């Protein structure tokens, strides 16, 4: 069996899905660590320092190309598998009781993945795109902390980001465990650990990401500077609206 055949079987493709997925999981960890620096409330000093490193270091920039390749590979292969699998049952069931035997998020990886992809287009259009454009053709790197503050002062942008994080969380709950199962690592002894670590990861990482736009929005509204009673009046007014 040559390499091409080895990776074009159902399990071979699954290995590619798992490997690219795990790479994206590692990316999420790094991305989350760097962006969480905004919570230091130092006007973005620590965050911009790391963002500068990530945006200019030649090794990181090379890995960035790999990241895009893996992301699109994961997305395109995933969609192809989804449609191919659907076509394997030309006559469907009249009655199904899928909720009796499986979790909705496990069955919805394609739709959750599509939502994440749509979110990513908006996300890259907001930050990555303008920054790389400015680096290449404009006046150098952008102040990404200010960009975040600006974008996240808009409640609709904040809601889109929170929704993106929710889709990511459900995608990860299945995906994290599934990748380990694909690599044959979810054996009896490790299955429980992998499942629990996966659930913890799927909650913590998207939660930290979701807190970022909320944090900037709260800052833009001046909620951090308000006296708690003034804040409550503010909320009461919003509730009436």
């Amino acid at each position: 069996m040559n390499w091409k055949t080895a990776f074009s079987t159902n399990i071979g493709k699954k290995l590619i899905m798992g490997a690219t997925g795990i790479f994206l999981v590692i990316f999420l960890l790094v991305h989350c660590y760097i962006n969480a620096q905004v919570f230091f409330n130092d006007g973005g000093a620590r965050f911009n320092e790391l963002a500068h490193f990530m945006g200019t270091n030649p090794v990181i920039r090379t890995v960035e190309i790999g990241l895009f390749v893996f992301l699109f590979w994961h997305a395109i292969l995933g969609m192809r598998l989804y449609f191919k699998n659907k076509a394997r049952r030309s006559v469907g069931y009249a009655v199904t009781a899928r909720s009796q035997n499986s979790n909705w998020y496990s069955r919805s990886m394609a739709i959750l993945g599509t939502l994440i992809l749509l979110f990513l287009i908006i996300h890259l259009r907001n930050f990555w795109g303008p920054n790389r454009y400015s680096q290449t053709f404009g006046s150098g790197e952008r102040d990404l902390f200010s960009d975040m503050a600006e974008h996240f002062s808009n409640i609709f942008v904040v809601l889109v980001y929170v929704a993106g994080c929710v889709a990511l969380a459900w995608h990860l709950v299945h995906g994290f465990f599934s990748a380990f199962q694909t690599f044959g690592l979810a054996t009896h002894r490790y299955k429980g650990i992998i499942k629990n670590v996966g659930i913890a990861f799927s909650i913590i990482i998207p939660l930290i990401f979701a807190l970022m736009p909320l944090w900037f929005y709260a800052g833009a509204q001046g909620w951090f500077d308000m006296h708690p009673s003034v804040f409550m009046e503010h909320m009461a007014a919003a509730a009436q609206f």
Partner: protein
Amino acid sequence: MNLTLKVWRQKNAKAKGSFETFKVSDISSEMSFLEMFDVLNEKLINEGKEPIAFDHDCREGICGSCSMYVNGRPHGPWKHTTVCQLHMREYKDGDTITVEPWRANSFPVIKDLVTDRSAFDRIIQAGGYISVNTGNAVDANAIPIEKQKADDSFAAAACIGCGACVAACPNTSGMLFLSAKVSHLALLPQGDPERKKRAADMIHQHDSEGFGSCTNIGACEAECPKGISLENINRMNKEYMGSIFSGSKV
């Protein structure tokens, strides 16, 4: 009890099927699901109508012949139970039950509820065996086998090849069956010499039969009448990696 049955009727593999509704009366709660079908078929025969074709053989849950998709679930609602062992005490008077054949392009309908599951036979033929020399049978206990491995192998060998995993899978994948057959030999010393080739050959056959790819949803494990574990799929994935990453030619 009196029940309404909506059963898939299809004259032959080429015909376009549809649901037909039947009323069955005086069904005892002691009857098995298939006995209820026997009662209905006797009535149909007496009326000069074509009885409903369905697969069955041992009726004690070990042969893997029976295959009915009952109210959206393969083998009906009972856990670790084939449809022949499902009993009518599950149902109440006045219930409506929808019965469909396994739905998979790899399991074409032959007639009514009977599907052609020979794709599974061809997967076994591709490598689900061990090669032995002819002559006197070797003493079964000559090779010591670790208890845990023997148990795991036995649990995998419990697969009766009914195809409920394929029927339940949203991806129409046959990997639970395939992995059980790969596992039960891979775990034993007798299966060890051919394990790399076996995994590769059986997986290729599974794919060429047109079964879908596994995405670890787990519906197969939940519906399997023999409780075959997803750990077998985990093991098969490892076997496959051992096969493709090994230096040997497979």
